[in-house]
């Protein structure tokens, strides 16, 4: 079984799923490559660096030669996955539709091949080995005997001289039969005054018994069809026509046989190219995927992370992409966050609504994106690879398994600790907040002491002061409302409605993190925020008194 870097819940909560789904892949091979995407683990740093270099190269290439890459995109979009037909060609005979689709794939592959050649020559820039395609000209020639380079396909006469001759014969025979019948029809008209339709039929009403009788007397005619109102007479085939028809049937058989032979021959030629075609497909997939990653990096201002040998995550002005796009839609800006995570325990403390959980997710997202070979949303990033990443977040309540939210949380924590190993990244949101503060604090402290003794990077958000106070715990505090202009805030609040109050909190909130040394207080901003959001003054006052 393949190693697992993170479970699917972690990947989705951190926002990796969102990132992967925003990759814009243009070929079915790219879609496949996306599904087969595997993370890089510690020990594979060099491979990862190469992947990131490839993205960098394409990113620069797109920036400098946009027109050229739109040609490449054109070739991408003509690709259709014919893997099934290609693998089938060795054992079976392909249908005409399959050969048509293959021809189109080959045309697109050849086009892409030429574009990539051109890139090398025109821009004097080597492309990474991984993207090298083989030319499929040889096979294309087989499927395009007229060398027209257009997409149409048919079992053309040029495929086999035998086929050509047979088809010629059939056309001549068809004509001969028609002429023969026409001659008889003409004779009937002249001699008996009977006119037949172009299909050599004649409908006679039964009420005209004399005519019916007369028609029946004509030896060249026979009854074809009859209802109670009328009789349809048709031309009786002469011995000569019968003979021609028999020949026609045999000819048809030979044509079908010959067509089968042509298809068989073509299938074998396709089969001979099987390995090359499948390899080309794979490489196109990787090129397409890398191209999509480079496009994403350009569109979302991502940077190449520096890959470290030691386990450490250093982020300058990081942005959580999914949250950023949500804010963008509302016309707001994301407040970037910087932090350094090293083995040991780091706590994020600070105001409610201060973006603690988003910062936690950001740490997970950057780690995951790096290890899946993406550029990352920050102005600068240095990342040491983790061997296991787990995020504990939100409501783990499970009615099915009879667990309360606290129970669910504890179970998930146990699972996370079971899986943890060297170079683990653990991201824990508000552990034990669902129980009484006394035991909650005790549990959290116990967990932190346990984690301190392990070689993991742990990031924990908490409200419990004394947890962050433990020696050797790094305390990252949300700057929060500390530096806000309260006078102005109060003035603006006077006229704000419910929705605007929430917006005011985010307007005055400083989401950035700062390292607090020693036993810095966990800021007490909960009451303040409750007040901003419009909780009754008497409750606020009373709460302040209790404090």
């Amino acid at each position: 079984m393949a190693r697992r870097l993170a479970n699917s819940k972690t990947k989705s909560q951190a926002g990796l799923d969102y990132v992967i789904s925003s990759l814009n892949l243009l070929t079915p091979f790219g879609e496949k490559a996306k599904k087969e995407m595997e993370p890089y683990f510690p020990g594979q740093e060099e491979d990862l660096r190469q992947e990131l270099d490839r993205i960098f190269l394409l990113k620069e290439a797109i920036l400098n030669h946009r027109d050229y890459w739109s040609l490449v995109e054109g070739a991408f979009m003509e690709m259709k996955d014919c893997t099934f037909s290609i693998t089938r060609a060795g054992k079976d005979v392909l249908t005409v539709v399959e050969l048509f689709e293959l021809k189109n794939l080959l045309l697109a592959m050849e086009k892409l091949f030429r574009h990539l050649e051109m890139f090398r020559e025109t821009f004097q820039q080597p492309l990474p080995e991984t993207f090298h395609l083989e030319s499929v000209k040889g096979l294309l020639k087989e499927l395009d005997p007229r060398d027209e380079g257009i997409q149409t396909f048919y079992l053309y006469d040029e495929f086999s001289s035998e086929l050509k001759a047979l088809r010629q014969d059939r056309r001549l025979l068809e004509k001969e039969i028609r002429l023969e019948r026409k001659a008889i029809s003409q004779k009937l008209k002249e001699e008996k005054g009977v006119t037949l339709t172009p299909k050599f039929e004649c409908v006679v009403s039964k009420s005209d018994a004399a005519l019916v009788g007369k028609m029946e007397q004509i030896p060249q005619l026979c009854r074809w069809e009859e209802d109670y109102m009328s009789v349809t007479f048709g031309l009786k085939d002469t011995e000569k026509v019968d003979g021609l028809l028999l020949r026609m049937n045999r000819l048809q058989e030979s044509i079908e046989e010959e067509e089968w032979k042509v298809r068989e021959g073509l299938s074998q030629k396709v089969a001979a190219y099987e390995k090359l075609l499948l390899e080309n497909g794979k490489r196109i997939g990787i090129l397409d995927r890398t191209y999509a990653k480079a496009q994403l990096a350009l569109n979302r201002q991502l940077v190449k992370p520096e890959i470290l040998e030691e386990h450490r995550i250093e982020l300058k002005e990081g942005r959580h992409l999914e949250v950023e796009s949500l804010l963008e839609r509302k016309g707001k800006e994301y407040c970037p966050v910087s932090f350094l995570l090293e083995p040991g325990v780091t706590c994020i403390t600070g105001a409610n609504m201060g973006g603690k959980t988003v910062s936690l997710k950001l740490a997970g997202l950057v780690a995951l994106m790096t290890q899946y070979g993406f550029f990352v949303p920050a102005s600068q990033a240095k990342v040491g690879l983790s061997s296991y990443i787990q995020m504990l977040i939100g409501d783990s309540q499970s009615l099915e398994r009879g667990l309360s939210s606290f129970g669910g949380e504890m179970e998930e924590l146990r699972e996370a600790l079971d899986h943890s190993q060297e170079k683990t990244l653990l991201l824990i949101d508000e552990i034990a907040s669902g129980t009484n503060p006394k035991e909650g604090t005790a549990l959290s402290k116990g967990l932190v002491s346990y984690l301190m003794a392990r070689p993991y990077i742990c990031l924990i958000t908490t409200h419990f002061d004394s947890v962050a106070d433990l020696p050797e715990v790094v305390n990252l505090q949300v700057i929060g409302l500390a530096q806000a202009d309260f006078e102005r805030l109060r003035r603006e609040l006077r006229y704000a409605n419910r929705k605007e109050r929430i917006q005011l909190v985010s307007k005055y909130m400083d989401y950035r993190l700062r390292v607090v040394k020693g036993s810095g207080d966990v800021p007490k901003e909960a009451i303040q925020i409750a007040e901003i959001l419009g909780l009754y003054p008497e409750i606020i006052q009373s709460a302040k008194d209790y404090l």
Partner: protein
Amino acid sequence: MGLLCEFSQLNKTISIVGMAKNSGKTTTLKYFIEEAMDENIALGVTSTGRDGESTDLVTGTDKPKVYLYEGTLVSVPTKLYELAEAGLEILRMTEYRTSIGPLLLCRVVDSGYVQIAGPLTTKEHKLLCDEMLSLGAELILIDGAIDRKSIAAPSTSDGVILATGAVLSRNMKRVVEETAHVVGIYGLPVLENEKALSLIHEQGGNQILFLDQEEGGIRSRTYEGKTGLRASRFLDEELNDCTRFIYLPGALTSGVIEDIHPGKLKNLTFVLKDPTKIFIESHSWQQWCKKGLRVFVIENIHVLAVSVNPTAPTGYAFEHEELLASMRGALPNLPILDVKR
């Protein structure tokens, strides 16, 4: 000059529409394909649904394939390609899907029988026809889907050939009457009052609209209540002395008209999207017309010819000449063909 040649001067796409199942639609199509070949018209052939299958899926009666000649453009679903007896050069695999695989756009390079199918939506249909025309087709024949007259919405083709026949009724008089009725309503006059037209277009054409003649021109009122068959009871209340037009986006049935006070009918004109919105059979229609019913349409259907099939698949038949003669009597201005001849 043959009939088809004449048609193709003014119409680029011609649908063949059946009055009922087995009214000889496919026979008519074959008849015109033959004629196109004789006249040397470059042809495109498609259908508004799967058609040309060897047996009719609904009634199980015989339905032969269509014989196509070299050079004809045709749309064939992927799964029927191998079954075609004609030699078909694949020009393009289209993005139009059918239940039997995506459609292939082909050119016949070796004459023979082909089973035809076409795109399922009107929009895709239009695109396919345009593509065939750009590939050199001078005329496109469309085998209209199954039998429903209602599918022959005007936007699918420039002109229509109506296939009718014994299958409609054992009573020949009724066959002629019903056919003449359909031809009549297909050719209903088009609304030409520009002010009224622009008011209807402004509303998007999906709401009931009252157009009142007031000082200074026509004003429109929308009807806020429910639309549909049940809404007609309220229509009467909304009508006033000034109302000149009433635009109905939905169906026009006898029920709708019955709910309107007969006195108000005289000054009123109904406006419909197209004639397929009328669901009134010929007798009632005539009676309503006598009482003063007037209907305009935004777009009418151009009937080019009527083809008759004197035999019904259930075994009875009419005298060919008699049917032709009485049909010609009822529709003196249209070419009437007996496709069995």
